[in-house]
Every structure is written in C-alpha cells, then in structure tokens.
C-alpha cells in the first residue's frame, strides 16, 4: 500500500489557509439565503397575490435544477444577456448562485416552521392590540426559528460542502487548492483525504454550535 501519512499531515497548513474563503462563501451565502428565504416564506404563507405565484416558480426552479448548472447559468450565461454582468468576478457569482439555490430550500423550511406555530399565537397578539408585523417579530418568528433550526442547519452543512463547486468557476478555494496540489505531487489520496477531513471537521464544529443554540432556544419549551 502506497500511503504517505507524513505528507498528508504536511499539507494541512496550506489547505487551512483556504478555510477562511470557504467560510466566507458559506456564511455570506447563508445570510443572503436566510433573508431571501424568509421573504419567500412570508409571501407564500400569506399568499400575497402575484408575488405568491412568482415565489412558487422561483422555489420550484431552484430546487429542481442542479447547483452546478445554476452556477454556470449565472457566471457564464448572464453576461451574455446583460453585458454589465461580465464585470462580476467568480467569487461573487458563486456566492450569488449559492444564495439563490439555498434560499429556495430555506423558503420551504421556513414556511413549514411558520405553519408549525399555532395560529392562536397570532390571534392572541392581535387581540392585545399588536400589529401583524409586531406579532411576527416578537412572537411568531422566534417560535418558528426554533422549529427551523435543525433543518436549516442541514442546509448550511450542505452549503459548506457546495462551496467546493466554486472551483468550477475558477475560484481558488479549498478544493481547488487541493486539486492543484494533487496534480503537482500526484499524491491524490492523501490530498483529497486531507481536504475531506477539513470539511468534516468544519461540520463537526458547526454541529456543536448548533446544538448549543438549539439548547438555548428551547429553554422556554422544556417542562
């Protein structure tokens, strides 16, 4: 068996230099995805005319098409229609693509989470004179957030892994770097295993964070 453990350990410092970029992509895309997803969920939940149909088409399209196709559509396709998009760099395109795709998934998660909050909560808010906006902000969204966290967390873990697709647009991120080092050293197994371990560790750290958050948020609901 031909496995160079020492080499594998040596590549970690180089790979870890690319961790911040991966994290930035994932976190920025997640923030946009949450914002757009929440908007979509509110539109579909409240059946806002016209917007509701548009939102459904958006959700359906971006859930049903491969992420890679979406990224190419944005990065290589859009500048053809709108020349001003050619100024967009690959990293921006990747973040936009990942935001859009994950917003469609989060929209469904958020809507289910909103549905799981009993309508009596909204009625109770209105009955004490709150506006609907106040009701959502103070009572409904916090309860929905707790319901949404497990599934949203899975989406985020998926998103972290999907950032590796950015290499196809030419973004020099973690996986792209691994690929480059592998072609130089020809130690494919060591490099890709190291890359995999970095993603794995990232997911483990994130899961711990989420567990802590879930515990905090579920305090009011524990008997």
């Amino acid at each position, binding site marked *: 068996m031909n496995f160079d453990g020492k080499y594998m350990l040596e590549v970690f410092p180089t790979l870890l230099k690319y961790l911040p970029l991966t994290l930035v992509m994932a976190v920025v895309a997640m923030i946009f995805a949450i914002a757009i997803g929440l908007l979509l969920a509110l539109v579909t939940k409240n059946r806002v005319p016209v917007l509701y149909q548009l939102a459904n088409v958006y959700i359906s399209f971006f859930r049903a098409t491969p992420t890679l196709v979406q990224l190419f559509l944005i990065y290589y396709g859009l500048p053809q229609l709108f020349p001003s998009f050619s100024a967009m760099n690959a990293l921006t395109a990747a973040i936009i693509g990942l935001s859009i795709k994950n917003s469609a998934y989060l929209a469904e998660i958020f809507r289910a989470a909103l549905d799981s909050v*009993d309508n009596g*909560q909204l009625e109770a808010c*209105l*009955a*004490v*004179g709150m506006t609907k906006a106040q009701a959502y902000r*103070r009572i409904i969204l916090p309860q929905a957030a707790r319901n949404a966290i497990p599934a949203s967390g899975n989406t985020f873990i998926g998103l972290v892994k999907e950032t590796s697709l950015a290499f196809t647009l030419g973004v020099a991120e973690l996986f792209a770097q691994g690929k480059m080092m592998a072609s130089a050293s020809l130690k494919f197994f060591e490099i890709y295993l190291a890359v995999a371990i970095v993603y794995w560790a990232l997911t483990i750290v994130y899961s711990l964070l989420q567990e802590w958050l879930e515990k905090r948020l579920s*305090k009011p609901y524990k008997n």
Partner: protein
Amino acid sequence: MIKVTNLRKQFNDLVVLDGIDIEVAQGEVVAIIGPSGSGKSTLLRCLNLLESPDAGRIEIGQATLDAPKYSRKQAHHLRQQTAMVFQNYNLFKNRTALQNVTESLIITKKMKQSEADKIGRALLEQVGLAHKADSYPITLSGGQQQRVAIARALAVDPHAILLDEPTSALDPELVAEVLQVIKAIAEKRTTMLIVTHEMAFARQVADRIIFMADGKIVEQGTPDELFDRPQNPRTQRFLQQISAPASFIS
C-alpha cells in the same frame, strides 16, 4: 360601552351570524349561552375582527367600524378597545408568565420595562400567580395558564374583555380557580362578554344572559328571567337539555 348593529357573517353558504344586535353598558357583565355551532365564538371574534364581518356596525369605546369596508388602521383601533381570553389560553409560548402580561404594554403602549413589570406583577398577584412570574407557559397547569391569560387581558386595560368559553378546556378540578378570578373581576365592574357553558356561574356573575341559536339572539334577560322563566320554546328546550344529563344514563 359596546353597541353592535345588524352584524352578519357567513362562511361560504353557511350563515353563522344572522343580524345580531347587542348593547352592553359600561361595567355590565353579559353571558352568552347557546348550543354548539350557534355562532357564539364567531360573534366574539367579529368584535375584535379575528373574523371579518360581512355587514353591520360595531361600536366599542372610542372606535366605530362599518363592515365590510374598513381600513387596517380602523381595524387596529377597534382591536385596541378589547382584550380576549381564549378557550385554549393561547399564551405566548416563548414568553414567561410576566412577559405574557407585559408584552402589550411594552410593544403597543411603549411603556418602560420597569413600569410594565410593576403593572405585570400586580396583575399576576391579582390572579394569584405572583410566584409564577418567571415560569414559561409549558410549566403551568391549564388553570394557571388561563389565569395568566386573564391577567394579560387586564393589562391592556380594555373597554371590554371578551371571554370565549374560558373554562371549557380545563380539567374539572381546575375550573373553580379560573371562575373565581373572573368573578372577582366582574365584581370590579369590568365590562365583559362571556361565552360559557357554566350556567351556575353565568347566573352568579352576569347582569344579563343572552341565549343564541342559529346565528340569532333568541332571547335575553336577567339571569332570573332567562333561567327561571324562559319565554321562547327554543330557550326552554336548551335549558332542559343541559339540566338533564339523564339522557347520558339511559
């Protein structure tokens, strides 16, 4: 003061409120009784626009509203005249007992936290739950939750409190503590509209009883008039049915 004129509501083809007229004086306690499905809940829910009426005029306190056309602002204004106590409490699950009571003070009345807490604690004291101020709803019994809900309604300092079967979801042994609290509030001359199946309680606390059936007010009067000398055959039949659980045995 509450004045309702020719209130109408239907769900699809089902006429649920068929021209309701009600006047409730300041400080009056009115109990609404009637068979299930007669429109009692819908009536209360139209008064704070949780259901939107199809026609009619609603006047409560400072607010007047003509259905079915009204602005969001008018709706909000009308809602602020009342508070509601729901059958299944509907306490804010992510708020402690105290926060349930103070939420409206802080959010809609823009009161300072310290001031709101003071009022909130006094109201919890009034319903006998000062010691549960920091408990979340899930840790409270049904009776305790409903008492918090009553304190929450009082905090709004409304012109009238609407109570929709406030004890129907409670285990029998918890009913008394809630009725006790409502009775104490009634004695302070708080305007109240109470839908209830607790006839003995209605008789005790209400100044007037309204009997509803099929979306109409069939008969109304003082408790003595309505319970002892009902005039309408519908009322007589209803009162007989509820006082004769014998059909249960046979």
